[in-house]
Structure formats: C-alpha cells, structure tokens
C-alpha cells in the first residue's frame, strides 16, 4: 500500500522541480538564520542566489559529524526558539550528542514519512503495531509512534526491553506488526521459542527493523523464527530519526523519501558526486525541515543508489542496504576498496567462512593488498597444486569485484586475532 501516491509515485522531472524549489527556499533560510551555514557558504563564495536548481547542490558545503558536535547544543537552529516543540538527541557515546530540534511542522513531516514507512509493509488501521523501539531521547520509539498514529493503527507503545512482557503482550493482543532493532528481534524469537511459543500460530506478519547494521542471513533467520516479513528501515538523528528510507515488500533496496531528504553518493576521499550505481558515501540534505535543517550531511554510511523502477510502483530512488562505513574504506593504488566488498566475494565462494584480514603495505611506490583467509576443510587438499588453485580462484574473484590485484594467503584456523565485538579487518602498514 502506498501512503502518499502523489509524492511516492511522482514522475522524475516533476520531483526534480519540487526538490529544486525546496532547496532554493532552504538555502535562503539557512543563509539568513544560521550563522554557522552563512560562514560555511561565505568561505566557499556561495550565495543563495547561486542556487537555482537541485543540480546546484554540488556548490554547497558539506556538514560533518564534527560540525554537528561543534554547534552543540543549538548552534544549527534555523527556527525561532519558541517554535520548537520537541527535542531528540543521539546517545553521544563517542562524544557530544547530535541534537535534532523539531517544530510542529517537522513533527508533521516525521509523522508523514513514518506513515509512508509503515505503509511499505501494508500497515493500515486494522493493524496492531507493537513498538519495541526505546521511547525517550532516542528517535526510534517516537518516530514509529507518530507514524502509527497518523495511519490510525492500534499502537502498543511498549518501548524496548522486558522480553517476557513483550511476548505476553504479543500473544494477548495479537500484534501484527513488530518494530524493534534486528538484534532484539532475534532475542525475542529465541526466548519465545524457549517458552514454547509457536510464532506460526500468531498473527504477526511484518517487522520493521533498523537502527543498527544487519545482514541478509540475519533477515532469513528472523523471518524463519518469527514467521514474518522482515523489512529494513533507515534513518539517523541528524536527518530526522527513522523515516529517511525503508524497504517495501519487494525487499530490494530502501526507498528514500527524496521529496524531503535529498540523497547524493560521493567519493569519500574527494567529495566528488558519483553516478548512480556507484558505491560511495551517502549524503543527505533535509529539504523541508524547519528546526534544525542540514546541508549535505556526510553520513559515513556506504551504499549506492538504484534508479530503476521498483515493482511496487514507487518512483522514488532506492538505496542498497548499507554496505559498510567510510571509516573502513581503503584507497589502494587510487582505487577505493571497502572491506564489505571482500566479504561479499568470500561469502560467494562456497564454504569460505568470513574469517579474514586485509593487510595493506607499500613496497617502493606500489601498494599491495594481501587478504589472509583462514584455511577451511574445503579449501584444503593433500596436494599443493590444489591449494594454489584455490588461492588463485579467490584472487580472480576478488579482482573481478575490486578492480585491483590482491594476493590471497591461506592461514591456519584461529590464527587471525578475534576481538571483542567488532573484528579488526584491516591492517594498513603504509607510512603515508
């Protein structure tokens, strides 16, 4: 079900016109009201009158996470202070939190894009939405809340945690829609199974999972365990919270609500805009926000844009589910290499478990990549020539994806260091 037919199925040229006029209006407002942006634009010699079309967006300055910390708490406020009706912040675990201040119109936009999101999974008035995202300063809980209220679904604002109670409520009220983090969906399934709950007998049919990275294999696991369709949703506090993009029932990329949030993909090293289909850093401009709008925000998330028409009928551009973070990117011999690409190749080669490490070095003027992969039963042979052939096969597959040569070295099992939490995949030994 498409929530907003007018915008979600708008013809591209008409959508460009909407984006263009919204961008012009936004830039004029920011230049006038936010000294932080006036300064940024002045330093680039850009005036509001230079922005006449959405294409002119490339003339505008980027905003980074560091900028957002610099303006803490409200140095990026574009509206009059008493127009603000609600404030959310990120957790701030890695520094000062990022602040999103909403006017009533911003809350209306948020409700609209979250209604569109929930409608991607055919959520309607008859649905019972169990919202297990945390309520509070975190945007997840209230974002879903506003969307479900706008649709007029039966909302259960249970918030996160208390798994036994979640499962009890789910059974007693017959929840049909579940919203939570993907890892929490796995926990719900695990505890539910241990308690003897047969999810196939519950009316649960669709889940909206986001706020942390997750994989296709996690999706399959969640879908099988909870007996529902699992959709990936994306958002961030800097932009609005959840509701920036969402998968539809086709599960083939996330539709970006680009009449509100204009996406670009850039080369993280040069800042140059990349063509559709090319992998790079995702950048967003909030075209309509009043409280704390943001210009060309560098998300540090890696993905690419899919412009082809989706089977659901929506015309708005899709982004591939996240493929990594720019923090992990390597530039080798002038080519951008993402560890996620190497992981994809290894996963495609039968039975190669993704225990690997990438070593980058520079000998003379030339960069070299060595991919160390732990030996498995299927890659091993009593004959050296077979082992060499397996190394070669992986090297060729890697070259096909990376466009830069790498050397594969098979190492003994458990010889690549395991770390608590996130694995250290890349060791860059170059002295640049």
């Amino acid at each position, binding site marked *: 079900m498409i929530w907003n037919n007018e915008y979600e199925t708008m013809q591209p040229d008409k959508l460009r016109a909407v984006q263009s006029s919204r961008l012009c209006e936004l830039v004029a407002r920011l230049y006038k009201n936010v000294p932080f942006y006036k300064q940024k634009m002045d330093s680039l010699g850009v005036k509001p009158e230079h922005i006449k079309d959405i294409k002119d967006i490339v003339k505008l300055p980027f905003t980074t996470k560091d900028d957002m910390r610099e303006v803490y708490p409200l140095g990026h406020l574009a509206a009059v202070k008493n127009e603000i009706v609600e404030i959310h912040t990120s957790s701030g675990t890695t520094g000062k939190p990022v602040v999103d201040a909403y006017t009533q119109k911003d809350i209306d936009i948020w409700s609209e894009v979250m209604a569109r999101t929930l409608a991607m999974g055919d959520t309607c008035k008859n649905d019972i939405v169990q919202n297990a995202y945390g309520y509070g300063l975190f945007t997840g809980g209230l974002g879903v809340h506003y969307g479900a209220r706008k649709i007029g679904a039966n909302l259960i604002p249970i918030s996160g945690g208390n798994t036994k109670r979640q499962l009890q409520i789910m059974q007693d009220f017959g929840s049909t829609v579940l919203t939570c983090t993907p890892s929490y969906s796995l926990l719900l399934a695990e505890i539910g199974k241990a308690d003897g709950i047969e999810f196939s007998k519950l009316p649960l049919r669709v889940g909206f999972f986001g706020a942390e990275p997750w994989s296709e294999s996690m999706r399959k696991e969640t879908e099988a365990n909870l007996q529902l369709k699992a959709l990936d949703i994306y958002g961030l506090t800097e932009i609005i919270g959840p509701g920036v993009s969402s998968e539809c029932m086709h599960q083939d990329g996330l539709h970006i609500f680009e009449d509100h949030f204009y996406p670009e993909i850039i080369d993280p090293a040069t800042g140059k805009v990349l063509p559709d289909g090319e992998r790079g850093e995702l950048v967003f401009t909030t075209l309509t926000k009043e409280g704390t709008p943001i210009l060309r925000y560098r998300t540090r998330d890696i993905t690419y844009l899919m412009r082809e028409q989706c089977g659901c009928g929506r015309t708005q551009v899709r982004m591939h589910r996240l493929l990594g973070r720019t923090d992990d990117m390597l530039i080798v011999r002038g080519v951008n290499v993402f560890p996620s690409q190497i992981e994809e190749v290894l996963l495609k080669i039968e039975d190669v478990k993704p225990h690997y490490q990438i070593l980058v070095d520079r000998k003379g003027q030339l960069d070299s990549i060595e991919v160390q992969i732990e030996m498995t039963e299927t890659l091993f042979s*009593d004959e050296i020539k077979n082992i060499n052939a397996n190394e070669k096969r992986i090297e060729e597959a890697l070259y096909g994806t990376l466009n830069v040569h790498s050397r594969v070295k*098979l190492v003994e099992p*458990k010889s690549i260091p395991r770390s608590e939490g996130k694995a250290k995949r890349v060791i860059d030994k170059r002295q640049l």
Partner: protein
Amino acid sequence: MKIKQISIFLENKIGRLAEVTKLLADSKINIRTLSLAETAEFGVLRLIVSDPDACLKVLKDNQFVAQETDVIAVEVQDKPGGLNRILEIFHKNDINIEYMYAFVEKKVDNAIVVFRIDNAGKAIAVLQDHNIAIVSDDIIKNL
C-alpha cells in the same frame, strides 16, 4: 588395499611441526612415515600412522585443518631397478603419480613406497596383474 594417509595444513612457523608431533606423542599415535611438501608460505604434512582415524580426530579437536586421503603402499625390491620396475608399469598403463615417498621402517625385506594416484583403483588392479605386493592397513598397523 588402499591405506589412509593424513594430511595437515601448516603455516611455515617455527615450532609448528613439533606441535603436531607432540600432540601425536601424547595420544600414543605412532608415525610410520611422513613427507612434507612446502611452498614459501605453507606446508602440507603427510603422515602414515598406526591409527589414522584417531589421528584425524585429535588433530581436528586441536583446530588443525586435516583430512584423510587414500594412498597405495607398495613393496619395492631393495635392489637396483626395484623402483624403476614399478614406475614403468605405471607409465605403460597411463597412470599418473601425484606424489610419492618412501617408508623409513624396515622390518620387511623389501622397501615400502607410498604412491598418491588419482585413479587408485586402476593402479591397484594393474599392480595385482603384475604380482606386485601391496601393503594393507593391517600390516601398517603391526609394522
């Protein structure tokens, strides 16, 4: 008539081979013969042992990548031309040898040579046609 060989993946690191022999010693597994094939970065250790199944288990339990492969052990007359006779039979019958190595033990009069051949069934039939003694698992166990 095939016997089981255990092969093990080893990185070229000091002391790694000793770790394997220590593990086998602790498990009371006797090494009858061995060969080590190597490249600049890794080696494949091939072993003929008293109890191959127990050997494979103890290696896997200790996180080694190891596998069992069928090989043929052949008695070769311990005199000039002894090995040549066998190799000529293989050659004439179009049998390709991947690799081979000899036994260090000598409790029998003849030498014993281990052959790794892709088509082991055919090799055994050819050897039998020429009345060449093939060494069985039982003999290896009781050497």
